[in-house]
Structure formats: structure tokens, C-alpha cells
């Protein structure tokens, strides 16, 4: 998780935290800018739950 934490600390668009129960909280910045949809950010949203069961048109 360390690398991911460092990675997201560098971005203002999205902050990810996980609570003691394992619930991931994704907090968007109140101002949307282009970085919100950058490839690495958008990958991060589904990656924690995607695992090996990827189906559909996921291209990330």
C-alpha cells in the first residue's frame, strides 16, 4: 500500500483511504480538473477490486 499511498499523495484529484473494516473511501477534490481522468488515477479506482475476474471492456 505504501507505493500507492505515495502515488495518491501526489494527486489532488482523488484521495483514497481504507478504514479498519476494509472499506475504501475515495474522496474527490471539489474542483474537477483534467488530472481526475488521467490514466493512472482511473485505473486505481477499479484495480483494488478487479483481481483476476476482469470482464467486459476494461482496458486499464
Amino acid at each position, binding site marked *: 500500500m505504501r507505493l500507492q499511498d505515495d502515488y495518491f499523495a501526489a494527486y489532488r484529484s482523488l484521495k483514497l483511504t481504507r478504514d479498519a473494516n476494509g472499506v475504501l*473511501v475515495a474522496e474527490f477534490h471539489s*474542483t474537477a480538473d483534467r488530472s481526475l481522468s488521467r490514466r493512472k488515477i482511473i485505473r486505481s*479506482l477499479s484495480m483494488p477490486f478487479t483481481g483476476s475476474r476482469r470482464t*467486459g471492456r476494461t482496458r486499464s
Partner: protein
Amino acid sequence: MILTGAGGEFISEIDFSSFGNVADSGVWSQVHDEGVQILENLANIRVPVIAAIEGRAHVHSEYALLSSVIVAAEGATFHDVPHFTGGIVPGDGIFTAWSYRAGAGRAEAFLLNPQPLTARTAYEWGVVAEVVPNGTALRRARELAELYLKAPEVTRRNTRVHFMQPLKERIVREVGYGLSLEGASAADLVKSMQAKSEPVARKGKSA
């Protein structure tokens, strides 16, 4: 998983300048590609997703509508600031998400004449599942998450997958096309703005 916003808002504003020249085909091609992917990736989250909305969800409210359940504070409002009023097509998935959740008629009227929509109205439209006192949306979302966590992992995952499938199919069918239309309108808007500013610039030079 919980989707929420910072500082008592969901997403309230947009920084258009961060997008660069949207009339440039290379720029829009990237916006198009990333715009499709962010929605597909939200749709591909394989656990129940709860949106906790406080304040303004005035930009990219479709991200919240890709949640399984939306908990909104009494003072929360939904809106579409960046598109039709600003001169561009609401093609990035906001129509797809709103028409899926609220019905096409409501979605079209909402997006053609965007006005802040209260949490209570969104509840009546079936978009919001629960309206809670201001400042408590995240807490309520955590309570729901704890409740969902009591179900087995495979059940949680497969229920989300099943519930999302119809919306996911619409996203795959509609959002790439919608973003192409949005891109054309954005390029046209830039062109008309440039045309308006040219005579002023010329006048400035000759003066």
C-alpha cells in the same frame, strides 16, 4: 467502497483551463479515451459502492450515479454546470447515468435546462436512496458498508456485478459516441469564440 467529496462538497467546480485546447483533435482524443475509461472503470468496481453526497454535486454527478446506493445530505444539490449551459453537449456519460436512474424524460429536461436539483427531488426521482441530515452522509454510508460487509465476499461482488450490468452495457454503447458529439460541440464553441475575439484583436492592432 464509498465515493465522496472533500470539504463538504462532492464536485462543485471544474477547471476548464486544465483541459487545454479542446478544439485540438489530439487533446480531445485523449479526453475521449480517458473519459470512456473512467466510467468503465467505475462500472467495473466489484464491490457495492455507496456515494455519500454533501453540498454540491454540480460536476460529474454521473460518478455518484454509478454507485449502487446514494446517500445525500438534506442540503445536497445535483446539477450539470459544464455542459449545455456552457455550450457543449452533455455527452460524457451524464445523460446515460441520469436517464438510467431517473428516466430519459427527466434526464433530458434536467440536462437541457440545468438547475440545482435538491436531494429531496433526487430522492423522489429514485436517484437518491436516502436523505440524511447535513454532515452525516459519510457516517450513514459507513453504516451501510458495515451492513454489506456481513454478506460473503462472492455475494457482495456478484451482486454488484449483476446490478451494474445493464448500466455498464449502456456506458459501453453510448459514452464513446456521446464524447465524440461533445468534442465536436467543444471545437465549434472554441471556433465561435475565436471568431468573436478576432475583430476586437484586429481593431486593437490598428488603433
